């Protein structure tokens, strides 16, 4: 037995599997596995993690190392991150879903020159609308409804903000729940909803802080910039890692934006009111 560069033992005589290496937003990622079929499956899922249309920055080094160790005798999969076991699964699909989320969060947290906010993003007549929210908060439902009504799709997961405060597209497929059951996500292309994908970075005109509440109606309450930033930081990934940079970028984004709060009820009527608000509100 000998150790590979991740510190895992491989059987002597067997060639080591070539790990997957890729970079996104200046973050270098390496994924290894002791099962070549699983490794290929992970590779085929990468477009789900990082959209093909995304423009990447070059990584200086591959400093986030993931390794999947299959233990066939125990019907078990273990996930290691930087040589530390972070999780184990008995179900391969659950393992792959977990790996997807880990990879995305790692890229979003460590991205160079960008701040990732967990948010849905569309543009309407050349102005960006950012809808921060946690998972299951209805971001994708609202984003999909806005696309159906003519908005240009930027993302249903991350608002990627640059140092000027502009939002960039992160156009992964829309992962919509509620079709099979309320947990399983089904992926849709924005084109399936009649939508187009944005390509250019845009200034943010409106940040909408919202959460679903049955029978709620559109009742916008405009926040002061600082107050609004506190709400945005709830969904901002690199705040702890890079607080000064994050605060600077979010402040730039928010400086010329309107930050508004409203509960969201039925999505169709809400989207209609939101578009009207977006067209009439001035910063």
């Amino acid at each position, binding site marked *: 037995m000998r150790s590979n560069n991740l510190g895992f033992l491989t059987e002597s005589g067997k060639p080591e599997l070539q790990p997957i290496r890729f970079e996104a937003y200046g973050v270098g990622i390496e994924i290894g596995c002791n099962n070549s079929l699983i490794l290929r499956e992970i590779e085929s899922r990468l477009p789900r993690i990082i959209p093909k249309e995304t423009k990447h920055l070059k990584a200086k080094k591959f400093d986030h190392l993931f390794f999947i160790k299959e233990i066939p005798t125990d019907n078990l999969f273990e996930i290691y991150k930087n040589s530390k076991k972070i999780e184990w699964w008995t179900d391969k699909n659950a393992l792959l879903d977990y790996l997807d989320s880990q990879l995305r*969060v790692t890229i979003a947290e460590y991205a160079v020159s960008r701040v990732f906010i967990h948010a849905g993003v569309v543009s309407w007549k050349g102005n960006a609308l950012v809808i921060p929210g946690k998972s299951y908060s209805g971001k994708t439902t609202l984003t999909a409804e806005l696309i159906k009504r003519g908005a240009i799709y930027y993302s249903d997961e991350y608002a990627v903000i640059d140092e000027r405060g502009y939002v960039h597209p992160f156009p992964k497929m829309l992962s919509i729940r509620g079709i099979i059951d309320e947990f399983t996500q089904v992926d849709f292309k924005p084109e399936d909803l009649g939508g187009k994908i944005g390509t250019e970075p845009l200034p943010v005109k409106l940040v909408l802080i919202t959460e679903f509440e049955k029978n709620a109606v559109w009742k916008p309450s405009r926040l002061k910039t600082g107050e609004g930033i*506190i709400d945005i930081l709830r*969904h901002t990934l690199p705040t702890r890692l890079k607080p000064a940079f994050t*605060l600077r970028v979010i402040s730039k984004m928010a400086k010329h934006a309107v930050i508004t709060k409203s509960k969201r009820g039925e999505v169709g009527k809400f989207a209609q009111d939101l578009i009207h608000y977006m067209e009439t509100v001035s910063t």
Partner: protein
Amino acid sequence: MNNFKIPAARSEDLIIQGLGEEVLVYDLKTDKAHCLNQTTAIVWNACDGKNSINKIIESLENQTGGKVSEDLVWLAIDLLNERNLLTEKNPQIFSKSNRREVLKKVGLASVVALPIIASLVAPTAAFAVACSGTVTNCVGCPDGTPCDVDMDTIIGMCLAGACAGD
């Protein structure tokens, strides 16, 4: 209030970002973000460890153009003290019930906005994505996150990526 030392604004281990009238402050020691409204920001800036309360009142009046009561300044200082934004931690000036009373009294009489600090513990990356409040899926959430997979009334806790005790 007699025992309260003349306050000085803390500057160490803080990231400070001006936003017009408001000020954003990030405390590197506690990973908390604070937003000081105009009244609190002016008082905080005037807290240099030398200015008397009267000087701070004067500074607030000059910058807001309104008459300011001493209680309003003490309310702001109490908030700053509570959020560890002064160099030395002092005992709280107002109890919660007392503070409500003073707020009511000052609020009715003052044209200057009441002091407010909105605060937030900065989330970890995993929390920012999926793990605030009660989650319905523990994937990616730290152990201990409240979860409710069955959407019933029993709340469990995330343990190793799964909802335990639900």
